[in-house]
Each structure stands twice: as C-alpha cells, then as structure tokens.
C-alpha cells in the first residue's frame, strides 16, 4: 500500500473515533454498576455488565420521586406509528397528483407545500396551541399525531413526487387504455411499485417524529403524555438524577432510530438527501 493511502486510513480512523467517542461514553457509563460509576473513571470500561442504570431509567424510583421513561417510550410509539402511516399515505396521494396529474398552477402549489418543511415552527406555535385547545386536542397524544401529520406533508409529498416522477408515464398510459381511471391507476399501478418510496418516507418520518422535541414540549404538558425526548430532557435537567441514569435514558431514547439506521440506513440516507433538494 502506498504511503498516502495509509495516511488516508489514519485520518479516516481518527475521525471515526471522534464520531464514536460519545457513543463509547454512553455505553460505558450505562452498563456500569452504581458502585462503579464515578466521574473520574468515565472513560474506563465497566468491570462487569450491569443493567441497573437501565432499570432505574426505565422504571424510575417512586422513593426518590424519579419518573421512569417507560410510559414516555410507549407514548412515543403510540404517537410515531399512526403519524408515520397517515403522513406517508397523504404524501403518496399528493406525490401521485403532482408527478402525474399536473394541472394549472400545480407546480406553484407544490412549491408552496414544500416551503412548509423549512419554516421555523416557532412561527406557528401560538396559533397551533390556540386551535388545539379549541378542538379539544391540546395536551393529548391524538393532538400530537395530528400536528405531526400536518407538518409531515411537505417532506412526504416531496419524496413521493420525486419518486413517482421516475415511474414511466407509458405504464400509466397503458393502464388507461386497459380502462383504468384515476383511482384504478393509483391503486393497481402506482401503489404496487411504491414500496421503495414508502420505505424511504416511513423511515424518514419515523426518525424525525421520534426525535421531535418542540411539538412534544409545547403540546404535551403533562408528564404522562410527553414523548420520550421531552421526558429525557426533564430527567437530565433535574440535578438529583445520577448521570449514569441520564446516560441510560439517552441510550433508551436513541435506540429505536439507531436500530432503524443500522438495518435500513440505505433508505434513511435517501430521505436525507431528498431533504436537500439540489445536488440530488
């Protein structure tokens, strides 16, 4: 191997260490026994593997007034699953029309929808709270599902529009000659070839809704409604919670999207690049 090649590997490895450092601390700390946890030894590997920190982070401790994350973890699941499915289907329907049934001003309407994914959500929060209170969804999981569906429309529409544009129009024309109409083409031609599109969109939505903090913070005030990111922030914000419990909580919060990333990273990357428009 040439010297320059070796140098490249060294540099790449140094960067890999930089990206993995926090993960190392996360794992090393979460798996230590309580006796072993000590800030001075935070870089040391645990002597024995212990799940005590996870148990504490998951179940909490009524004695210490510490809320566990189990309920919030489940809240996030109840919230993410329907919101992902609904927003993906909305995106698929919109993408179908914007790619294959263009009408006058449809491109303008499309860009107006896409703009919605860039806005700072601060600029819609106050009316959002008012409206959710009016329709009785404020402080509820259905309220959060609703909000994530609405603000998920831009990105899901964008990814599906780009995906459906690559489906040859000749196939649609052929289906039309065979007598299929607007809905027939969607259900019998488009949906069956949509699986890769759905994979990208659903993985993207799953990850971003799971990782959302702002909507959860503003819409879910009660601790028993909060999604896991909000609960983790509360857990980490209270000074009496030992840091190994905080780390275990952080790991619990990171695990679902990390599993998705490890097994379906290919699709995740495509979603990422779709969000960046140009250069894709």
């Amino acid at each position, binding site marked *: 191997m040439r010297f320059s090649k070796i140098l*490249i590997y060294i*540099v*790449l490895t140094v*960067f*890999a260490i*930089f*990206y*993995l450092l*926090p993960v190392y*601390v996360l794992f090393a700390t979460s798996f230590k026994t309580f006796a072993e946890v000590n800030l*001075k030894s*935070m*870089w040391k590997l645990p002597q024995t593997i212990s799940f005590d920190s996870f148990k504490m982070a998951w179940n909490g401790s009524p004695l210490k007034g510490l809320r566990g994350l189990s309920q919030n973890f489940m809240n996030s699941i109840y919230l993410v699953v329907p919101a992902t499915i609904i927003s993906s289907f*909305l995106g698929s*329907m919109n993408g179908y*029309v*914007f790619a294959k*049934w263009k*009408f006058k001003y449809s491109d303008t*309407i*499309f*860009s*107006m*929808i*896409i*703009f*919605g994914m860039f*806005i*700072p959500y*601060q*600029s*819609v*929060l*106050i*009316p*959002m709270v008012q409206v959710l209170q009016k329709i009785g969804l404020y402080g509820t999981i259905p309220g959060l599902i609703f909000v994530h569906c609405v603000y998920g*429309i831009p990105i899901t529409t964008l990814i599906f529009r*780009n995906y459906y544009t690559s489906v040859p*129009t000749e196939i649609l024309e052929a289906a039309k000659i065979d007598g299929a109409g*607007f809905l027939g083409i969607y259900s019998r031609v488009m949906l069956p070839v949509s699986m890769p599109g759905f994979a990208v969109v659903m993985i993207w939505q799953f990850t971003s809704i799971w*990782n959302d*903090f702002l909507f959860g913070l*503003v819409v879910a005030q009660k601790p028993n409604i909060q999604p896991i*990111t909000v609960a*983790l*922030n509360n857990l*980490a914000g209270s000074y009496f919670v030992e840091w190994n419990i*905080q780390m275990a*909580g*952080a790991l619990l*919060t*990171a695990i679902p*999207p*990390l599993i998705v990333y490890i097994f379906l*990273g290919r699709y995740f990357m495509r979603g*990422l690049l779709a969000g*960046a*428009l*140009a*250069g894709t």
Partner: protein
Amino acid sequence: MRKSKEERILSILFIAPSIILILVFVYGFIIWTGWISLTNWRDVFPDFTYVGLKNYVELFQNLRFQIDFKNVLVFTTLFLFFCTLIGLFLAILLDRKIKYENLFRSIYLFPMAISFIVTGVVWRWLLNPGTQTTGPIGINMLLEQIGLGFLKSKWYTDPNVGIKAVVIAAVWQMSGYVMAMYLAGIRSIPNELSEAAQVDGASIWQIYRYIILPLLRPVTLGAVIILTHISLKIFDLVVAMTGAGIGFSCDVPALFMYDTTFRGNFFAQGASIATILLISIAVLIIPYLRYSLKSGG
C-alpha cells in the same frame, strides 16, 4: 396525460385535504402569528389592541435579544465553516477507493439519526469541566491524558466560550450529513472528466481544484442553505445541552421565543421573535426553492 373532466376533479379532490391543511396550519398560522406580533398581548388573556411595530422596536432594544442575535451569528458562521470543511474533506477521502467505505460512511452519518436531545445530554457531560473535587472530567480529562492539556477549557460554563461549545456538538451531529451530500455530488460527476484530465497529465490535486470542486458548487450552495436554516432555528440542542447559559452566553432566539411565550406569557413578544426568524429563513429558502425546483430537483 389526457384527462377527462371526472379525472380532473378526482385529482384535485385527492390533494385537497393536504392543501387545506397546509393553507390553514402553515400560511394561516403564519399570518395569525404576524398579527399577534402587532398587538399588545402580554398576559395569559389575549389582548388584540393594535400597537404597530412597538414589539419589534422593543425587541431590538432588548439586551437578551441583542445577545441572541450575536450568538446565532457566531453559531451559524462556525457551524457552517466546520461542517462544510469536514464534510468536503471526508467525502474526498472516502472517494479515494477506500476499503470499508461503507463502514466509515455509516459511522460519520449515524449522529444524524439520533435526537438533538440525546446529543445535548451526552455532550453536556463530555464538555463538563468538572469541579474542584472531581478535577478535570470528560473531554478535558481526555485532552490531559493525550498530552493536549493546554486545550482544556471551561466550555459552556465560560461565558466567553458559551455558544461555541454548542457548535462542537452540532458539528458532531451534522457534518456527516454534509459528507453524504458531497459524496453523492462527487459520485454524480462522470468519471471520464477526471480520466481525460489524468491523460492530459493533471495531478490529483489539479483534478480536484479545477474539475471536481467547481462542479460541486451546487452541492455547497445546497449544504450552506440547509445548514443555515437549521442553525437559525436551533433550539433542541441548546435546551438539552446548556440552556440559556451564564449571562445568556448560550442563548438563541428560538429559546428566547419559547421562554417569553410559554413561560412568561408575553405572547406578542414571542410572536415578533418568531416572525423575525421566519423572515430571515424565508429570505434564504424562497430563492433557493425557486432555483432548485426549476432545475428539476
């Protein structure tokens, strides 16, 4: 495709729910927020007395907002600089026909999959300077052990560092994204171009300098715009990692907006911060959207 009247109506009906939702929840709400910013609503109970631009004038005289404004500028500049530099550097290295390219790429990109809250919690401990009794911990301890002790810092607990400490965590999380964008960009450049240059005797350095980098300009533009809009609205990471910090040294406009609106009930002031954020992002995004959708994105 030829459309019958029925198909035309059906296709509009198909997207009508989404269009109505976006019209109300994006555009309607933005206008409503803009209106609130012109009123006197500074209590739990709404007060829609029109006061003109008073809230904006007060905001620019507000010390916290002035600090936030400076912080977000510093944050954006450093964040952009390091993300694009590291992203481009790693993409070029990964493009040199590397064994285990997939593994390296996955490692650089994985922080994108996790929540800013997780990142914030972990980096708060890594950049914790420790106390008198614990001595140096986290990154400081590591720096000391590898002989770089002079780089030790009090990080976010030092008002002079403040928001710059948050940049480290943000770059850790987002630079892989830029790497992925650049790598996709480099891969879309036809090989023949650099092969032809090689035949003409160009060095690798010249190929990058005169062929690849100029062709990557659209990617850089995309990355800069995406990163800038993320950094202008940065919120989660700051909340989880530092909060507003000593003398607001870590504070950002989005955090100020949340505090003043939902903790202080100064709804009109919150709405004016939100509107300023929106305008600064719209100025950036709208031309980019026009450019990028026109070029077939």
